[in-house]
């Protein structure tokens, strides 16, 4: 497999909302290499999350090509994409998105239900993932019994439990206080450095971007050339 894990060419996403035609992303070209920690930055509505969703195959591009881990996503059907996503991509949301009726352990076990692992093995893997994020003592806690930082760490455990190649994080610190945000970012950096996970982090927090090895900026749907920032962006 090539060292390039994410490669897009002329990636464009357009929406039609009522009578408005919105270009969310225009001709985006990016290459992410195995083991990279890339931060995608830009103001709200710039198209960061759209790019992330396209890379995770959660949405289909209007035009352009996208190749992730050697798979051309444009050609896959919905079922194949779902299976591919389960195997290769871990996704972390800004608002955690844990299932409230499941415990931390059950939430983390959820993606493993789609594998052929037996229940005992699933539980063991889930417990290991939770220990890895420092929540080995919170296995039976429900989301409502956890702090925001802890919830996000459960969400990260859920994202890594299938041992995916890529971790895609959509503003994972957006709902956290400074201390919890730092813990989560440190955890992502640890997963990148020690476990070799390729991380793509969407954020508009410059402090968060410091943890990344590479920063790319998006403005008004356009992915700016490497090393370029939007106007007025410090």
């Amino acid at each position: 497999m090539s060292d390039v894990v994410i490669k897009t060419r002329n990636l464009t996403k357009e929406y039609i909302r009522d009578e408005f035609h919105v270009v969310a992303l225009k001709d985006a070209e990016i290459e992410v290499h195995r083991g990279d920690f890339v931060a995608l930055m830009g103001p709200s509505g710039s198209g960061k999350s759209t790019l992330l969703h396209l890379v995770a195959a959660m949405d289909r591009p209007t035009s352009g090509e996208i190749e992730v881990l050697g798979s051309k996503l444009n050609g896959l059907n919905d079922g194949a994409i779902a299976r591919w996503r389960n195997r290769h991509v871990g996704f972390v949301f800004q608002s955690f998105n844990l299932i409230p009726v499941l415990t931390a352990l059950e939430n983390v076990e959820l993606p493993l239900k789609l594998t052929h692992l037996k229940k005992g093995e699933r539980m063991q893997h889930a417990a290991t993932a939770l220990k890895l994020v420092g929540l080995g003592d919170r296995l039976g806690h429900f989301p409502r019994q956890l702090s925001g930082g802890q919830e996000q760490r459960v969400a990260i455990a859920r994202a890594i439990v299938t041992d995916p190649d890529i971790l895609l994080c959509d503003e994972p610190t957006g709902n956290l206080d400074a201390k919890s945000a730092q813990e989560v970012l440190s955890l992502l950096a640890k997963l990148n450095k020690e476990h070799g996970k390729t991380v793509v982090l969407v954020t508009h927090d410059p402090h968060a971007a410091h943890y990344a090895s590479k920063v790319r900026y998006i403005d008004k749907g356009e992915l700016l050339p490497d090393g370029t920032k939007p106007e007025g962006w410090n």
Partner: protein
Amino acid sequence: MKFLSLIVKNCLRNRRRSFLTIASLAISLCLLGVMAALYYALFISNVPPKAQARRIVTRHKVSIVFQMPLYYREKIRQVPGVEEVMVWQWYGGVYKDSRDQRNFFARLGVEADKLFKVYQDYVLPEDQKQAFINDPAGCVVNKVLADRHGFKVGDKILIKGDIFPFDLDVTVRGIYTSTDFDDETLWFNFKYFENALRNSSRLAAGTFTMLAKSEADVPHICREVDAMFANSPTPTKTESEYTFGLSFLSFLGNIKVILMVICGAVTFTVLLIAANTMAMSVRERVKEVGVLKTLGFEKRTILWLILGESAVISMVGGLLGVLIAQGLCILIRQGPMIVQQTKTLSIGPPVFAALVGLSALIGVAAAVVPAWNASRSNIIDALRFTD
């Protein structure tokens, strides 16, 4: 099976709503259960008790209220396959207070010496049989009826006449049970009629009950008896005793249609309740559907998860309803007899299976639209959904 725990947890997500939905399903399925049991007993199971299978009843072709000449008895006796034939006549009358439903029971004048030959399932001591046969003012009563009213051998029973112009003053000579079916009847000696209506044109037969030599003889006896009187001033209608009993239901109207309409209305109402609940439940979880899809859940998995959840809720309600319906059937069995089938009313295995199957079907049907929409929803739209 690995998704069962997730389905159960989703069912318990909003406990109050699930409880109320299950309760409404249980009550509706209970009503449906009783109706279905009744329908099954009346129109499907149709297997008469063993002794009854050989009994045939002949009545006036127009209506049971018209009588037939007594000499028909001897003509019927000549039909091949007839082992015994006896006359019985509905007396009617008022026992104590007619407003109390418990005082309503069948009071029939019968040829006493033939009763136990035709009703071979009746069990009572020989001396009581003989006492009944020899007493023109004697009667025998079914034990269930005797227990209800406290009748004992030797008791006098007075019944005020309404159809016939005389009162019935009879003595209990025997109390019988049945190996087949307790009919809760008072049989009095037909000689009472003969004595009270001597020289009256009203001394006639209400019905003739025959005992066929074998079950196989029943159809041709019915045909031959009716053919024999087809062109007479008093034509007859002959049918098995079991079918004859069912004909009383027709006095209430088209029971088959009534039962089916009620069952249909209940099923449709339950479907609406369940559909409303599932629509609300799925709407609350649009975002979660987006999360599950992000984790790799396929459309069909999402579809089955939601359908399964609805089916579980519906089946729990259904099972609960069937249990309550079984309890109601027991209560109905202990009440006054309307037709003999109500005395054996029960949720049998076929009705049970049909009700549980129906409740599962209701659950699935109720969730089809929301489950389909959720499974087809776009991940991004689902994740951005705000109620």
